């Protein structure tokens, strides 16, 4: 490399990064100065600090392309993927704060224990397809019918939606509410054209969909731009209404002898 290429360019500057350091429930912010350029993302700087200034800094990451969902954190107070947050999106003249997600138990520095999420996934009734359409054991379905659930399959399980949800983050209802990520998971199964299971009673009771008060924070932070509130949570709330709060609609369906799932 030419020595001149390592010199600061017009867009290179020194910026302060305020990173959360500590283990379990104890810790504090620690300032680091880093030389940065506009094209960098927050994860670049965190890894640079880890390499040059704090070798013991704990940080979870993997793909650095916004697809693995590992580097979730809170940047300047907002849940974000560190690898998808460019520095030119942040104020250049202020310290950048990076802290771990607040809805999950803290492990060390920027790392949290997200295993609770996988426990929630286990609670959701699995995919139960109808009998195969063809003698060879395969099914037939229209692309138009699966388009709706394919949006939910974009989820990378970064759990930023879980982190920002005030029901988990502030009210710690982890035992009563599965959170937006897994309501979306329920939606992906429940709205699937081949699925036959009924998850609505569980959604109302054990999964606690009624705790959601539609603040849309989950939709705001989703890096995959899934319309979590409008396309997953509210349609499922409407299905809860179908089963538990709309006797008129139920009567109409009985008399028209139609099933909601066909």
């Amino acid at each position: 490399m030419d020595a001149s290429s390592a010199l600061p360019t017009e867009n290179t500057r020194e910026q302060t990064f305020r990173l959360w350091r500590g283990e379990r429930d104890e810790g504090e912010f620690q300032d680091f100065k880093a030389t940065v350029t506009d094209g960098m993302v927050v994860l670049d700087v965190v890894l640079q600090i880890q390499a040059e200034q704090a070798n013991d800094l704990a940080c979870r990451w993997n793909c650095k392309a916004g697809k693995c969902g590992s580097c979730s954190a809170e940047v300047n107070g907002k849940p974000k993927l560190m690898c998808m947050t460019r520095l030119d999106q942040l104020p250049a003249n202020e310290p950048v704060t990076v802290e771990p997600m607040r809805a999950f138990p803290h492990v060390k520095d920027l790392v949290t224990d997200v295993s609770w999420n996988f426990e929630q996934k286990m609670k959701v009734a699995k995919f139960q397809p109808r009998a195969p359409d063809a003698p060879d054991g395969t099914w037939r379905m229209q692309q138009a019918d699966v388009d709706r659930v394919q949006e939910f399959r974009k989820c990378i399980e970064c759990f930023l939606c879980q982190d920002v949800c005030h029901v988990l983050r502030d009210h710690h209802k982890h035992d009563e509410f599965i959170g937006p990520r897994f309501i979306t998971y329920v939606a992906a199964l429940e709205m699937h054209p081949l699925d036959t299971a009924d998850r609505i009673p569980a959604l109302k009771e054990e999964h606690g969909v009624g705790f959601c008060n539609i603040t849309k924070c989950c939709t705001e932070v989703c890096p995959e731009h899934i319309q979590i509130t409008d396309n997953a949570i509210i349609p499922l709330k409407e299905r809860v209404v179908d089963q538990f709060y709309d006797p008129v609609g139920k009567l109409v369906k009985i008399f028209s002898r139609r099933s909601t799932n066909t």
Partner: protein
Amino acid sequence: MTHQPLPIQRGFGETLRRDLWWVSPLIVFLSFSAFLVYGTWAAFQNAYYTYGPYLSPFYSPEIWGDSHWALLGPKPGWWPTYVPFSPALLILPIPGLFRFTCYYYRGAYYKGFWADPANCAVGEARKVYRGEKPMPNALQNLHRYSMYLVLVVMAFLAYDAWEAFWWLDMGGNVHFGAGLGTVIMWANLVLLSGYTFGCHSVRHIVGGFKDRLSGQPIRAACYSGCSRLNAKHGSWARWSMFSVGFTDIYIRLCAMGYITDWRIF
């Protein structure tokens, strides 16, 4: 969660966010409050709600009342004297309940009025939270019923907008024409239609409750249309709230003689 402690809950308004997170809930609080105060005042007036072929949307449909729009004539004799009467008080509970239980408004006023949360990733004041699961908050599920009723009200508002084209001249003859009020009433109807037909409950009953829409082109088209409107439901909600209030103000000011309706043709 039992295995490890969670971070301590932040205090009210505590956050590391750098943006003006308090602006949007403040705007919601001020604009919704202004609409509520004006709407309540206008509903209790029981006067100046018609002008020419115009009828204020706050008073439509007029079930009982003193104008020629009244469906069942003047106020009934059995109406208790100690109960205030206004045609608006009979009809406003329907759109009022529809908006109060609307998914957009719920999200907005939980932030703007109840600060639960004040905004995303901002600390809350309350330690106790029950969501919409138990009563009375479970009554938010009345949205489905208020939606059924609001569809009827919408039919009357569409009729009112059509009637706004028909003017009575001095000789007692009816002529086709339009004033600025006609334009305002049609704009209000369009905005209210965008809000109502983009409602999550409407979207659900026209097709959202089904997992398969292929082979049902009409239902699929309705669902697709509702979904397109639903994508901007918040904007439709805000603009239609403004247009309803503005239409009432315009007709009221014309009726009170403060302004003159501009006759286009």
